[in-house]
């Protein structure tokens, strides 16, 4: 059972996609959030508080290019800026600095065109919980210009393929487990066969079998429908299995980018190991409080000792 093509919904009519253009261009993008100002900002206490006003630089000068048909993973700890980046790509946030283009269309200036090319799965399965998967997905399908009768057939096909039983398709979502709800969220994004699919931790909370189902779907979207996929994840195995390249983000900055095999080799060399290290070790290396350099390795004797010493130093400072 194949995933339907978006072309049949005529959503992409009058949208020109130049095959030579990169699918995603993120060019020196930054996003800062400010803590809201107190009501009586003129009072002395409030002024003192404002001196320490909290400004969070969620995304800090990130540059990344994704080719059409590529699957790129964005790895990072909680609060590292992955979701902020995805939301800027989804036209839900406006970058403070830099520019983002999707198939040559600017996410701010050409917002409406970009919206026709993308879909997104967020970490929380966001639905009207009192409504059934069918009602929720029918609503989404109509927003993406899909006629009701075609949508109903496709919704059943995709949900059945994701392992949702027919009687659950018309029952309220609130009675479903989180994993099942997440599958429905994934079905919603797949329903419109987007040219660019943004997956923000899509498999969090799913059992191993469901993860494999989703990963197979992601591969199919790319291989059969030539979709480009940007996925954020905490699951290093998933990143390794799915992604052509990964970017590691730490405190809003992109600290590494490359094929997993190359990153593993680089870190292994630094750790003076003959065998490639695991992706977990790569992640730990790049997101350590202090990026461990060759000098650190020499000074402390090994990568592990340098890591321990620098982490202890950070804890003491805190």
């Amino acid at each position, binding site marked *: 059972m194949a995933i339907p093509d978006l072309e049949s919904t005529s959503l992409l009519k009058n949208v020109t996609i130049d095959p030579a253009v990169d699918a995603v261009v993120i060019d020196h993008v930054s996003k800062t959030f400010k803590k809201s100002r107190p009501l009586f900002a003129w009072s002395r206490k409030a002024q003192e508080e404002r001196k320490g006003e909290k400004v969070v630089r969620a995304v800090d000068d990130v540059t990344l290019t994704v080719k059409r048909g590529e699957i790129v993973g964005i790895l990072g700890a909680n609060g590292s800026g992955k979701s902020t980046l995805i939301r800027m790509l989804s*036209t839900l946030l*406006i970058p403070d600095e830099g520019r983002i283009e999707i198939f040559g269309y600017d996410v701010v200036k050409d917002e409406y065109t970009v919206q026709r090319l993308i879909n997104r799965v967020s970490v929380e399965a966001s639905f*009207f919980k009192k409504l059934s998967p069918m009602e929720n997905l029918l609503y989404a399908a109509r927003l993406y210009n899909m006629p009701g009768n075609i949508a109903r057939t496709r919704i059943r096909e995709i949900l059945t393929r994701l392992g949702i039983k027919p009687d659950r398709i018309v029952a309220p979502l609130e009675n479903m487990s989180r994993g099942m709800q997440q599958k429905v969220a994934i079905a919603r994004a797949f329903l419109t066969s987007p040219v660019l699919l943004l997956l923000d931790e899509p498999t969090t909370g799913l059992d191993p079998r469901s993860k494999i189902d989703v990963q197979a779907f992601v591969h199919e979207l790319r291989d059969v429908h030539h979709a480009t996929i940007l996925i954020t994840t905490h699951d290093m195995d998933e990143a390794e299995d799915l992604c052509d390249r990964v970017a590691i983000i730490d405190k809003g900055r992109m600290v590494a980018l490359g094929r997993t095999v190359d990153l593993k080799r680089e870190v292994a060399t630094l750790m003076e190991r003959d065998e490639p290290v695991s992706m977990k070790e790569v992640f730990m290396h790049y997101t350590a409080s202090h990026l461990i350099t060759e000098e650190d390795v020499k000074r402390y004797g090994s990568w592990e000792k340098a890591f321990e010493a620098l982490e202890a130093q950070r804890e003491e400072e805190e």
Partner: protein
Amino acid sequence: MSSLMHQARASYAFFERNWNLTKRYWAWEIVWLVYNIVNALSVTLISYTAQDLSGAKIDTNYLIIYLLIGTSVWSYLSVTFEGVTDLIMIERWEGTIEHTFMAPISRFTHLVGSCWYAIVHGLLFTFLQLIIVGSFFHLDLSHANYLTAVVVLLIGSISFIGLGIAASVLPLLFTERGSQMSYIVRAILLLISGVYYPISVLPGWMQPLARVSPATYVLDGLRSGLLNGATLWSSSILNVIWPLIIAGIISVPLGVFIFTLAEKYAKHTGKLKRNG
């Protein structure tokens, strides 16, 4: 043509979704209906004591219908407003707000799609309330012109949509209590529009405000039609219809414009996110 079909389909998506939500929250609908009926009755029953309290001879039937029209319009306005502002709040609560805002549809389609369900819902709700409350009294409506009443209410609804869209900016910008903040818009309309009294009793400085409120003209038109049997082409009705048409033409684009500005601000500050 294809784009028009898309926007029409999307507009229907909001109608269908809201209808599905109403079906699922049926208990709330009953509670809300009972609340409005009790509220309308408690106001309308004042008519029976007015003569005793003032000592002057009063046409009780006239006063009952006068107040009944006030409570019904107030209820209609409340249900319609609630329908518009609550949807932003529910979408925020459920987390669907981001999906709706990243869908490839115009904001006009989004807002008007949500509003036309609110209007149909409000009309049915108010009609039901009117029938039930009316059954408590032996009303003489032999002079009433129902066509006038329906036309005035429908034309007035356009400006209510505009006001509702502008008020829904509050739940968009104030993530936690924005929906409750929109009550202030309704409260001001209640005060200045002559819901329970003629606007002539308002202090002088409030009179200009009353004249720019579309609810004032809806109430005037309904009272002329139902109490005096004014026809659609009578001068008293034409005098309320043209301000309502102008208010409708101005308020909907203005409401969408205000909402678009608020959306831009929300996208700069990260307020378009779930809450709950």
